[in-house]
């Protein structure tokens, strides 16, 4: 019929080029939205109830031990001259605190997310690369925690490492006036990826980790060098120290808690029984200068993590909102639908 030359410019007659692709046209009208909202609303209310109930089952024991108030047990430790101060916080549990119990320390008004603090570390050091122990330019991220006053390289360098939380705690159950130490489990409190992949110790020199750190000095605030962080467990030293790893994972918000230990062993595997407890705090970490607070938190966790009523309530509110809206819309829709019909 038509020769090729004639219709060379004829556009292709396809659904695509002619913009006739079968399409779904979502018009947001009451008809679709009402059932949609109703379903979403009901679902949300369901989730909300579930979350809320779950959250209610979680037990939390929180104690501020900063010692701001004069009558608080740790007040005396806030005096700067008082070094190696120890104070004792007591509390009592009326019911069994079901295990496993997580033992957190908490800080507030503490800006681990401060940008310049956040970049103040050297990943290459932390992967155990000894080349980066000494030869770093002073302009690196770690500055001014790269070198000490004698110009010795600090390992691990940077503000994060330097500011590691160094209060330590011992928990005792007081049974009939005697203190029974509650075993605290410090294994596996850090992220698996941090411990196994991200952080590496330098390979020991002659079987000694300390030798690998030769020629470097400890961070200024640290009482002991990195290879002596845990004197009890030689494997918990260097950059693979669990507390160090937990600290290095910076908190997102200025009020945060970090996992300190878990109570999983022995008599307390099922939880902390009701009774009186005493927490011995080796008070080292200064927070008062910036109006910070320190606390310890005992909590058990559920599938949704720690206690948080907000999410459950929010779900409930939003769910009800959806339901209410769908009702409102139904009214409106009915009204306008009928008036439309009148027109027609």
């Amino acid at each position, binding site marked *: 019929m038509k020769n090729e030359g004639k219709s060379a410019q004829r556009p292709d007659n396809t659904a695509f080029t*002619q913009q006739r692709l079968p399409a779904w046209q979502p018009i947001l009208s009451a008809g679709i939205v009402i059932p949609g909202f109703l379903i979403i609303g009901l679902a949300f209310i369901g989730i909300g109830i579930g979350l809320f109930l779950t959250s209610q089952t979680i037990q939390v024991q929180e104690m501020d031990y900063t010692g701001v108030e004069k009558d608080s047990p740790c007040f005396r430790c806030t005096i700067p001259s008082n070094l190696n101060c120890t104070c004792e916080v007591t509390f009592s549990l009326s019911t069994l605190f079901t295990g496993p119990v997580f033992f957190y320390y908490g800080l507030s008004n503490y800006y681990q997310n401060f940008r310049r603090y956040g970049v103040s570390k050297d990943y290459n050091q932390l992967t155990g690369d000894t080349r980066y122990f000494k030869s770093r330019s002073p302009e690196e991220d770690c500055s001014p925690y790269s070198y000490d006053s004698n110009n010795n390289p600090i390992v691990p360098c940077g503000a994060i490492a330097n500011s590691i939380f160094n209060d330590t705690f011992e928990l005792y159950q007081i049974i009939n006036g005697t203190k029974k130490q509650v075993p605290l489990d410090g294994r596996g409190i850090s992220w698996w990826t941090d411990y196994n992949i991200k952080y590496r110790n330098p390979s020991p020199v002659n079987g000694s980790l300390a030798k690998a750190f030769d020629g470097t000095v400890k961070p200024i605030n640290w009482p002991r060098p990195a290879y002596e962080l845990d004197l009890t467990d030689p494997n918990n030293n260097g950059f693979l120290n669990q507390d160090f790893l937990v600290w290095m994972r910076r908190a997102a918000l200025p009020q945060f808690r970090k996992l300190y230990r878990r109570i999983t062993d022995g008599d307390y595997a099922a939880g902390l029984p009701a009774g009186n407890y005493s927490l011995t705090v080796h008070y080292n970490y200064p927070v008062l200068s*910036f109006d910070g607070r320190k606390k310890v938190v005992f909590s058990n966790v559920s599938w949704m993590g720690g206690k948080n009523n907000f999410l459950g309530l929010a779900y409930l509110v939003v769910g009800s*909102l959806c339901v209410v809206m769908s009702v409102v819309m139904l009214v409106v829709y009915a009204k306008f639908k009928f008036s439309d019909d009148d027109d027609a």
Partner: protein
Amino acid sequence: LITRHSTLYLAKNRRVVMPSWTEHEEIKELQKSYSRNKVRTTKYTFLSFIPKNLFEQLHRFANLYFIFLAALNFVPIVNAFQPEISIIPIVFVMSITAVKDLWEDQRRRKSDQKVNNRLCDVYDRKQKRYVERRWAEVCVGDLVRLCCNEIIPADMVLLHSSDPNGVCHIETANLDGETNLKQRQVVRDLPQGSEFVPENYSSHIECENPNNDLRRFRGFMEHPGKVRVGLHSENLLLRSCTVRNTETVIGIVVYAGHETKAMQNNSGPRYKRSKLERRLNMDVLWCVILLLLMCLIAAVGHGFWLSGLQNPIYMIPDDTHPALAAFYMFWTMIIVLQVLIPISLYVSIEIVKLGQIYFIQNDLDLYNPVLDTGVQCRALNITEDLGQIQFLFSDKTGTLTENRMLFRRCTVAGTEYPHHENAISLEQYEDQGCGDADHSLTLRSRTSRKSLSCKSLSCNRSSVSLNTLTAESDTHSVHDTLRRHTPGAFSGTMECAVVPDPQLQAKLNTLSSAMRSPPRQQAAEISHILDFFLALTVCNTVVVSSPTQPRHVMPVVRTPLRSLEEMKAMFQKLSLPRFPSSLSQNTDTPTSLTKKLFTRGRSASYFPNNSPQTPIMTLQSPTTPSGTPSYTPSTPVTPALSSGAWSEDVDDIQKAKVNSADESESDDEDEAEELLYEAESPDEAALVQAAKAYGCTLLGRSPEQVLVVVPGTGPLSIPLLHVLPFHSARKRMSVVVRHPLTGEVVVYTKGADNVIMELAEAAEDGFSREVMERTQRNLDQYAREGLRTLCVAKKVLEEQEYEAWLKRHEYAETSIENREELLLESAERLETNLTLLGATGIVDRLQEEVPETIEALQEAGIKVWVLTGDKQETAINIAFACKLLRPTDHILMANCDSKETCEARLHELQHEIRQVTKEGVSEDDSSDCVLVIDGRTLDYTLQKELQGSFLELTCCCRSVICCRSTPLQKSQVVRLVRDKLKVMTLAIGDGANDVSMIQMADVGIGISGQEGMQAVMSSDFAISRFKFLRKLILVHGHWCYTRLANMILYFFYKNVMYVNLLFWYQFFCGFSGSTMTNSWVLIFFNLLFTSVPPIIYGVLDKDVSGETLLDLPDLYKSGQNSQAYLPSTFWMNILDAFYQSLVCFFIPYFAYTGSDIGVFSFGSPINGSALLIILLHQLIESRTVTWIHTAILLFSALFYYAFVLLFSLTCVTCNSPTNPLGIETKMMSDPLYYLVCGLTTVLALLPRILCRTFCNTICPSDLVRAQKMERLSAQDYSMSLRQWKENKAAQRLSSRHVPQNLSVNADMPHLTDCIAEAGAVLS
């Protein structure tokens, strides 16, 4: 040779060209400095690409901004990310642009190569023969020999042509798209013969420096004997044109390569800034302000936060003053929040527009199968302007009408010849439709294809800007031109079938048949009639060709027939009373001459089989002005050349003779097939066809003579002394010929009726005055019928008068400076004291679907103005026919002679309108008044003082018709409306006279019609029929606008929403510029993960289907009012973005606060829900979801998750300090993540969904109602469509006024009944 002194002098502002083998050292040097013929339209070379492209890209403001940001990030004190990350966006965007540029450049390079490698014959001095050379190697001064159908490689001065008359024909379709062949002439005084010996040529040429004026070439050639000959554009062969109908031509190259006129005329595609883009830039500015504000807040916050701290343990010891730190923080925040300025928006818009253009060009509904053309988008960046048109300015002829001119009727010497039978046959023709024409078009299109390959020459630069589409569309256009050219558009078979009016025929026959002398009065009339037809035949630029022989070959011998002598005698007798003086003066020579002619010619014609050696004579115009016209046989035609054509010619002539003697129509048609008339304007061809029907047949044309058949005679050669071509200022054209019968010098003038009438006014005798009066009446009548009118007049020049004029004219012709002005002046000097011969009425029928289109456009709220050069009555009539005017409309006339009356008239009209609106029921803007204004009045109203009241008046009118307007006025009107009313204007036209208007309007549309390609070349979009405008504007315009507007809004929303997440975080990190997101994700979020859906959305989204948009032109108004993108919608979007980001940030915040969540773990659910919100938001905003949308949305989401998961799995040491290792995997294994994301998404989108739903239910916009309508079944749809229209009609009706003829000014008493009449016809 010229002296050294003059060479140096001339070299400065002129160009000196000598043959390339010249010995003259200095000229040799000079010639070397001229550009060579190699063309390079590429922008880059291999080496220069990177620096040059970078440089060009840096000219964009947006790019500069991002480079500034990237650089800022290298300043350690303020850096927010690692420097290498911050340069990703800019590198990404710039490399996409660079790849696109490179690709375009590659296409240009290929086409350049093709052109440069073409071969042509160049004379080689050493080998003493022509050798083949590549085009690229041709230089100025080379002698180039070209054969028929070869493409001209450079601008050359024509030195020799194989044509005995020293002419050659070129086809300029590649250059300007004009379809007719143009004649070029060998430089005068050059020896013409069969052989051109290059060695003998040693003249030098001086001409002006290269310029881009295609129609102008000034210079002179100086022969060794110091004789100077003027050169003008008729001597110049232009690069990229094609030699036609001439066996060989030889020329000397004067401009080569980029200095040729063709290349100088090559401007790239047009760049216009669309209205939406201007708005967009405003809002980008707002975003900048927003950004600065946010940064300021952060900076101040940071300062206060710092000053409140007393050396905490987490603080980096630093003695920077908090204020200074705040200052640094300001810059850091600019880096962090940079995404607020949508970097990818500009690139995305370009891509989206390309996609939109792709769909426009691929629309089958805009495809014209007859011409095999679709719509061409020449401007790439104003698609969305099509959706916002408020004023449409249309040309009439060729735009609303076919521009296929058909002779309808004429009036000669005051007598009207109604041509009733012709009217009937025209109607039949119209009924038959274009089927025949189409057929003939397609048949021929094939042959022309090959010759067009050089189109790329003229077009390859056009793809300078961003896309490839240009190149394609240009190619396209070339094909168009070619194809259009070939059919010989003005000479289709049907047009030939002018049925002569019996009365006129009879009168004309008295001339040829009987020898009885008619009564004096009648004799004068008959001489008028003969002159009239002679003028129609001669006074034009029609070129004759016939399919059986090469076109434009001038039959060589003119053989007067037997009765010539007698006719002459009669003619002289007839004209005696009118031209006594000239007769007495001229009787001697011409008579004796014709006697001579007579005998010779007669032998030739009677014995056609005589040997070719028959003495052949041509009447030639005197080349030198001499006192007495000396008709000397000259330039014997070489037997070799003429013998072939000779016998054919004689055949033709005999046939013509037979035809002229025997007037049967069938014979006419037979002959019509043999002679094809090609004219620059279609009415010329129509007139020639008409004359032919009466036996006045144009057989051929050469620069010096015209060969015609006059009834009763055989072919006559009429010496053509001068052609004063048509000029828009003069509005007429003239030819000066020596009358074949009387031997007098006669000027025939043909032009617009008012002009000719004015020039003919000075008639003293009663007869001509009566003729004029009657003709004027007839003209008015014609105009009322909607015919195009032309007047024909003549003037007999006395020899002295002619000589005197000739001297000054020659001076004008040879002058280099001001040549155009002088020629114009010279023409005006000649065209005075004309004697009116008659007038013609040509019918130009309306294009199909024009009334429907205009109606739809008006319904869409577009004010349609018609700007035409035609008469008022014609314009009004066409306006009625195309429903621009309704019978019930008030027509307001404004025809004034002075500024004062004009001002008064405008006030009067305003008063009238006020009265009308008072009478009307309600005040609606669709008042049914139409203003008709003529050119002169328009001039007054365009003056500053009256502009205001003119515009005020037009605002109250539904439409305005400007008649008798010049091209300049057209553009002035467009500018006035565009600038003063601040509206979007669209101009549509098809001819050169519309170019300025098309360029002036916001959107210019060219109709690739019959009047060449100038309009198309200057347009933004080119369509082939007016009716396509409907879909182009109402559907594609609407779509493009809504799509782009929505996409841009979405982009703003998306960026603001995402950036605010980071901003809220600053409140919890001491305003320190921390981000809770890995910097790669941060950068890629807008650049990769969420950028494709909006592009798809911008290209494919369809709010309402095309059919519905066509059914309901009302819907177009949403675009006109910029409803999709108002400042309020922008701010609503920003507000929504703020809300969503608040939700998106604070729900995770509250969910995680107090827990042991890490910085980047906290960011994970925020990013996840932001992605969901942004994508689902897109879904809510979409009006159509096809599988493409779905796929892209899913792809985007999956891409994000795949990226972050992979990143968190594999990125062990990378990207410090925001190492993502293990974060996403850990977060996503936590059910809380999904709970947070779900809640956030629903809550964030809730208000928008609610808003939409309530709006759609309670007060749906027209668009939503249309969408709902589409869902109905076909039956329900048509029912609700009817109802919709009824509602609208009811609205309109309530605002319409009582029909009443306001009017009309005193000069136009007939107009009232004309309108009434037209109204009656239409109703």
